[in-house]
């Protein structure tokens, strides 16, 4: 009898333990086990509604504006039927005790139910101006001067549709914020002065060593009269290109060729008044492929050897911006087309022949050719060459230089009073368990 009572007691104790355990071990409802991610749905809904800044415009409108009704319709239309919402817009205040001040609210249900998720989204008024302060190239030593060849006495070739002067102007607008000194080289005489190692401006920041020189004349290169024309006349001025290569090495310049076959012609209206480039453009002389070969020889400090072999190639199909360039497109806000045609791409073989490294690929190499890159000699000096088909897109030159030097951008605060609003979209799921 005693044993039976004990067993009954044990059963009562175990039952009590089970009931107690069951009471605490509450299993979640299916909705809690496999919830729809309402926070993400809310965020992506707000992003979809703001894809062309429509939401950003509406939230700054007065509460009685008709665009609010359109927004309400769009919200109801894009959410699944079992999802209800409450969207609240707050004005962001600064210097006040209350940071957020509600300006309007939209909802399509009295209650959002027990399962809700919310996302917040900041929008800025179209009146806001975004500012940034770029780091100057050379700010921490080493160059910082940009020379843009804007020579009034030299003509361009393969810059069809533009003039060298117009390209120079655009390059100035694009790149001058990033350099300590940006100097327009107004004529070939000034170019000769630079090549002699003498400054041409009164800017305290002008420094020929480690400078960047952009040749806006396309396949033609301006040639100064006098010493350089005399010394460089050999082999249809291929020797001048050799001297340019030497000067690039001497001053550790970065020489930028914006389009086509680099150094294919030499140009000086005063020097060649009755010569033409074989295509009817006077003031210009044909150098041919020997110009680039001579430049690279000079850059590598090799003895001058006349070599008129054509070395560039035409890349089949399109060439595509490298992933590095694409990154810097977003960073600097420069958006050229990501694919281009290249009929003057430099061969990869020059890397070994002339001891060049490629620190920056503007385009991905294709079939043994590089359509655009910065080639830096292992000792000193660099060449930026864009072997693209005309007409030039100087944004690519700017992108290549910025991707090479990587100046940082310090973005300014734009959270001014009345220019930012906080949108909170809270979603609730109706029906089901």
């Amino acid at each position: 009898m005693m044993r039976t009572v004990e067993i009954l007691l044990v059963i009562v104790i175990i039952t009590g333990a089970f009931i107690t355990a069951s009471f605490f071990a509450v299993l979640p409802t299916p909705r809690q086990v496999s919830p729809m991610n309402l926070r993400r749905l809310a965020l992506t809904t707000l992003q979809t509604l703001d894809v062309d800044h429509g939401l950003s415009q509406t939230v700054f409108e007065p509460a009685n504006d008709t665009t609010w009704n359109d927004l309400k319709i769009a919200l109801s239309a894009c959410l699944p039927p079992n999802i209800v919402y409450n969207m609240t817009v707050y004005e962001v205040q600064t210097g006040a005790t209350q940071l957020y001040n509600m300006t309007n609210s939209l909802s399509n249900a009295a209650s959002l139910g027990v399962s809700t998720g919310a996302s917040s989204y900041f929008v800025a008024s179209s009146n806001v101006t975004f500012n940034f302060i770029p780091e100057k190239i050379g700010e921490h030593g080493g160059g910082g001067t940009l020379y843009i060849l804007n020579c009034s006495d030299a003509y361009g070739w393969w810059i069809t549709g533009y003039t060298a002067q117009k390209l120079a102007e655009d390059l100035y607008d694009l790149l001058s914020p990033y350099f300590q000194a940006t100097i327009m080289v107004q004529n070939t005489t000034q170019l000769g002065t630079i090549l002699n190692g003498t400054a041409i401006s009164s800017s305290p920041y002008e420094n020929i060593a480690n400078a960047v020189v952009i040749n806006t004349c396309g396949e033609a290169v301006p040639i100064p009269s006098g010493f350089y024309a005399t010394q460089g006349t050999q082999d249809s001025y291929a020797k001048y290109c050799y001297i340019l290569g030497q000067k690039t090495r001497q001053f550790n310049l970065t020489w930028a060729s914006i389009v086509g076959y680099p150094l294919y012609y030499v140009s000086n209206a005063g020097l060649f008044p009755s010569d033409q480039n074989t295509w009817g453009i006077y003031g210009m002389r044909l150098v041919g492929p020997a110009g680039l070969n001579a430049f690279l020889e000079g850059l590598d400090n090799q003895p001058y050897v006349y070599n008129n072999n054509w070395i560039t190639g035409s890349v089949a199909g399109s060439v595509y911006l490298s992933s590095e360039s694409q990154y810097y497109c977003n960073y600097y806000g420069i958006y050229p087309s990501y694919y281009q045609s290249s009929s003057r791409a430099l061969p990869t073989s020059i890397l070994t022949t002339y001891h060049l490294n490629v620190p920056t690929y503007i385009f991905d190499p294709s079939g043994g050719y590089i359509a655009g890159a910065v080639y830096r000699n292992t000792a000193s000096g660099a060449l930026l060459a864009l072997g693209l088909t005309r007409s030039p897109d100087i944004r690519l030159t700017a992108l290549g230089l910025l991707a090479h030097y990587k100046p940082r951008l310090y973005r300014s605060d734009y959270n001014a009073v009345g220019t930012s609003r906080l949108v909170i979209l809270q979603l609730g799921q109706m029906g089901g368990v």
Partner: protein
Amino acid sequence: MVALTIFLAALLLFITLFNQTIQTAVLYQRHRVIASKCTDLLDNILLNPGYPTYWGPSNVTPTNFGLQDPEFTQYRLSPFSLMRLKSLTGTPLYYPKTGLTYSNITMGFGNFLFVPYSEVVNYSTVSRLLGTNNTYDFQLNIAPIVTVSISEFKSSDPLIVTVSVTGKGFPLAGATLSYCFLTVDLQGGGAYPSYTTAYGSAYTDEKGTAFLQFPQITDDDTSYALIVYAYSSNLIGMNYHQRVTEDRQYAIPLIDDFGTRTVLIAHSYDVHYFGPPVAEISYNATFVLLTEDFTLREMPIENSTGKIGKVNYGEGKPYGTLTIPTENPGILIITYRKSANEGGIILMPWGLSTMAFEITFGADMFGKEWVATDIRQVTVSGMAYQAKLAVWSLEGYQVKG
């Protein structure tokens, strides 16, 4: 003895009861893992462009899978990457003249999208790249949020068309409609058909409906196509409707190569043979882009790259070839003519979103036991889409299909 038996029986009963509770809790935990996997996987797919970054408009098989448009951030998808997904739902098409099978994303007669298996990315590859093979299966559906329905209210003199615009949960009242109306001319333009275009705009009423009237259609035998874009508060949708006078012998565009943007033009009898008589089909192709103000802008196709041509059924009759003139998304419009009064118009999107096509990609989830789903609102070339992912486990007790 009786007491001991009762004790043992009770003990066994309670062990079973406790065990069931624990088992259910473990099961719920596994289900929660699948739900978490679903939401992570969806973000992983939608928030990275894959590698190579521009694998969509190329022939390259990605080594890292993602559908984000590489030119944008956040939930914006590449229309070309989507086009390269192997459709789960469409019946594959075999074209004997190339010996290739094509993934079928067609949305009905006259709105074709066939991509060769050699160019599509299949589910097993993607599953391997995402690391879900042998552990989870999934199905991804990308469908437009805005549904634009077009139907004929009056067939001619004048043609009146009803356009209804609805979202996922509500009609889109007051939406702006921007439309392009293309009338096929079978008799002008010499041996090849041509078309004329007319543009217009309208607004939907409070029920999301609008009636469009075209007095230029005076008889029922005129072929036409109507492309309508609807937008309101940045929600953009589109649809199209066409009427043809010959629906057996027509031209079918088949994508040949994404890298070179070539499209083959096949005779329909090489795909679906309806019996004699067989007639040669002449065609005239045009490519149009959608501009920011929702009008269509023509991008000329050079004659040398296959703008016009003739195709016929049978051996020794080659297919036509044309090259899309741009890498931007647009619509390929092909007018075709069988005879002076029989012909029609065919549309093909270049970039999935330009004709609001829907794609379902992945494994079949029919009969699966526990399927976790999650959704995101995305945009594809500005068009509002909803991405829905369903995930289920392939291993474990009571969780696999």
